[in-house]
């Protein structure tokens, strides 16, 4: 202890620091007031049953503490090892307050003079959280179906049970000066590049904020660039995905209270990979990956291409199709850009409404809204029928992306390209494409070029980018992550 306050003063300082909360429970231990000490806990953060049945059952004995920390019963019999593993010993009332806020019970032992001799925190259950359930946004047909929950300890155990290697390193730190959120950085020490680990650690330690309520808070602090529509870190709710990236030398960050893990470095082409790629046959996975790439191109380029050819480059449309489109657009009062923007924004509104509403109602709103609104808009002559096809194709293509955040990036790009197409036609789309490529090659994720393995080229890594090579062929770690060793352990 830094000082030796009396038990009453010690408890008083804790009580004052917490503002005399109603859920702070104080219990006297021992037969006489000055004999054993006190037990403090916040009943809203602890599991009361565990305190009553286990902690109090042991601590209410008249106990002594031997030199190696083992407790003995009051009649001199050895009770056994400590029934509860202490979280840590604390040295100041401030530490005690922090421990109580983390959901620990505080046992304070005083001597005969009433001076605090020792204070220990005990983990007594964890705050309420969900049980492990199936992933909600990263659904796969084949493969494990577990997802992270809001408990950091449970999330770590989900990774531990997948990687039972002594080289798995977990570094813990506390972020948020007010929330004091536990954050862990996980990596596979024999594989992960030390520079990447050090960079990740440095960025985490440099976070200066009052609160971290979710991994998204951390993501914005540690990502490489803010001014980009692309995520430079993977956020996933699947422990198997995190494990697979750890196996390749990536670093994962878990945040207490968040069911989403962050993984980095993460590159552009990895957004086209789905966890299921590795649970399906290689050839099937390859075709599906190509399909996702095609869907990305469709999502980004179909609306701007439509606007361009309808408004500027009619000569590019085959003659029968041009006549067909002209017939459909007879009587449509808006230019194609306005028509497209209105329909896509309407769809986005419907989609957003569907997400926020209760699930059963949300689906109905999306489907009915899209169908009824689209059909009515065509019948009213506000939009052309082909516009519905363009919007539907684009919307469906947006959902193909395995990563939700990447899907949002696609939509942002789509609107940017549409604006370019409206003002400059295909010339604008071409300029936008070049600008996008320049932007992509300028990004980095924890020092790894974002467009790798295409720029710079890592030939050996292409077998898990353009195709998904069979597992026996993937004997080397991805070179773009600069792993400690090249061949797999």
């Amino acid at each position: 202890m830094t000082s030796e306050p009396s038990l009453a003063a010690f408890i008083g300082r804790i009580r004052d620091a917490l503002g005399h909360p109603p859920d702070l429970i104080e219990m006297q231990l021992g037969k006489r007031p000055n004999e054993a000490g006190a037990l403090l806990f916040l009943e809203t953060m602890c599991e009361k049953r565990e305190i009553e049945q286990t902690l109090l059952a042991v601590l209410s004995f008249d106990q002594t503490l031997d030199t190696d920390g083992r407790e003995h019963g009051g009649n001199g019999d050895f009770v056994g090892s400590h029934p509860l593993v202490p979280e840590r010993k604390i040295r100041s009332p401030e530490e005690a307050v922090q421990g109580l806020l983390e959901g620990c019970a505080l046992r304070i032992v005083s001597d005969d003079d009433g001076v605090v001799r020792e204070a220990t925190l005990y983990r007594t259950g964890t705050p309420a959280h969900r049980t492990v359930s199936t992933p909600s946004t990263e659904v796969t047909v084949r493969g494990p179906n577990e997802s992270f929950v809001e408990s950091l300890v449970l999330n770590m155990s989900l990774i531990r049970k997948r990687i039972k290697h002594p080289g798995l390193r977990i570094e813990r730190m506390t972020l948020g000066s007010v929330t004091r959120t536990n954050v862990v950085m996980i990596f596979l020490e024999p594989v992960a590049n030390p520079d990447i680990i050090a960079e990740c650690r440095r960025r985490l330690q440099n976070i200066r904020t009052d609160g971290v309520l979710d991994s998204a808070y951390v993501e914005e602090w540690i990502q490489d660039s803010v001014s980009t529509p692309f995520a430079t870190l993977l956020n996933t709710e699947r422990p198997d995905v995190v494990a697979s990236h750890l196996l390749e030398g990536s670093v994962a960050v878990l945040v207490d209270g968040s069911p989403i893990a962050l993984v980095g470095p993460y590159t552009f082409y990895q957004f086209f990979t789905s966890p299921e790629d590795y649970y399906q046959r290689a050839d099937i996975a390859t075709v599906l990956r190509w399909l996702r790439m095609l869907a990305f191109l469709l999502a980004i380029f179909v609306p701007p291409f439509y606007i361009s050819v309808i408004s500027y480059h009619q000569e590019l449309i085959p003659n029968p199709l041009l006549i067909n489109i002209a017939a459909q657009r007879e009587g449509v009062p808006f230019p194609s850009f306005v028509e497209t923007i209105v329909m896509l924004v309407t769809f986005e509104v419907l989609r957003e409404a569907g997400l926020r509403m209760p699930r059963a109602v949300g689906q109905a709103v999306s489907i009915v809204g899209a169908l009824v609104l689209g059909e009515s808009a065509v019948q009213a002559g506000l939009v052309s029928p082909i516009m519905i096809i363009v919007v539907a194709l684009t919307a469906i293509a947006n959902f193909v992306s395995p990563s939700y955040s990447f899907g949002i990036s696609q939509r942002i790009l789509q609107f940017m390209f549409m604006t370019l197409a409206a003002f400059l036609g295909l010339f604008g789309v071409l300029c936008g494409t070049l600008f996008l490529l320049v932007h992509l090659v300028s990004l980095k994720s924890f020092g790894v070029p974002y467009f790798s393995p295409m720029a710079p080229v890592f030939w050996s890594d292409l077998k898990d980018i353009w195709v998904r090579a069979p597992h026996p062929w993937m004997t080397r770690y991805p070179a773009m992550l600069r792993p400690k060793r090249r061949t797999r352990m």
Partner: protein
Amino acid sequence: MDDAIPCDVAPEAADKDVTFTPMNRTVALVSAVAAIALVAAGCWDMREVNQLAIVDMAALDFEPQTGMEIGYYQVVNPNAITQQQASGLRSPVYTYRVEGRTIADLGRQAALRLPRELFPDHYQSIIVSERRARKEIMQLLDFFERQFDRRSTVQLFVAVDPLEDVMTELTPLERRPGNALRKLVEIQSSANGALSRRNRIKDVLEDLATGRCAVVPIVRLKGKPVRNVGRYQSSDADAGNLYLHGGAVFCGDRMVGELGHDDMSWYHALSGRTAALGATVRASVGSVDVRTERLRIQSRLDAHADPPVWRVRMKAALHVTGLRPDKPDLTHDDLRDICLAFERKASERASAVYDLSVRRGWDLFGLRRKMTLAGRDAAQWSTVRLRVDIGCRVLNPGELAGSYGPQIESEASSP
């Protein structure tokens, strides 16, 4: 505890002049580009599809008395095209007739009549009246070459019937007449060689520019013209229909004559512009209809011979399409005889077309240029002799070895 919270903003950031941060520069740059884009020229050539008058076919004529150019624009009525299955009572095309002092003036005059912007990029066919073609054609070709929005790959035709009738005629099945003519060329070029795809404006230009005569299909009108949509309610497709027959020969800058329809195939064959030839030959087994499935043609001018010889070598693989033999089964000798008959016929017909071209002074095969390239006097091209060597084999005698004819006769005569 609040005291322990570090300040989010670094102290030096507060002193920094935010106007010149990289972020602000990026925002300023993007804003500037966006502002320029708003007033960029790209904005002003925007035109929606439904603001266009999509021209399917155009025609050129001239008025001999006034010397005025007469242009016809056949504009597609998109709704009538797409709804033709449900209702055929709307005209799929509307024809506008304009007069102007020059060909370019025709476009300006059309703008006075058309409520939509003329869209010439999708011309399917161009028709020139015979009298205009005989006057001169280079002005039209030159005009096309100079326009970035007019394709030189559009098919060119000559009409011998009045253009007013041809341009107001409605065609069944393929309801856009310009497209119907284009389809006719495409189908015929691969079926029997009477027409070739190489009658596009660019091909005609290439021929004329190299001193060679060009041949352009002639479009004719069968029967009386039917100018209303009532023709879609009649099953008589031939009554008032456009068809292609024969070719107009252009030498220099004008039309100089006509090539018969039967000669067109052999002209295209000698020119190496078709892989399909159809012919009826008289062999020892009787009258046989054959069609080439493959036709390879190589030609070479032997300029050092005296007189110079133009050697044309044809290698034909035949398909026997019709047979009326005097005996029931074809033998290898019969097939060989059919080949020999085809070789005789091909040699005879090719020579006839060649002789015609020489006789009339039409350099249909570019011999003038060949002579020049060989260092000979181009004017002597008419002295060049044609030698045709034909290699032939029957690739496909048909499903039957013989014919049903004798078999049926023998069965009929049996008791």
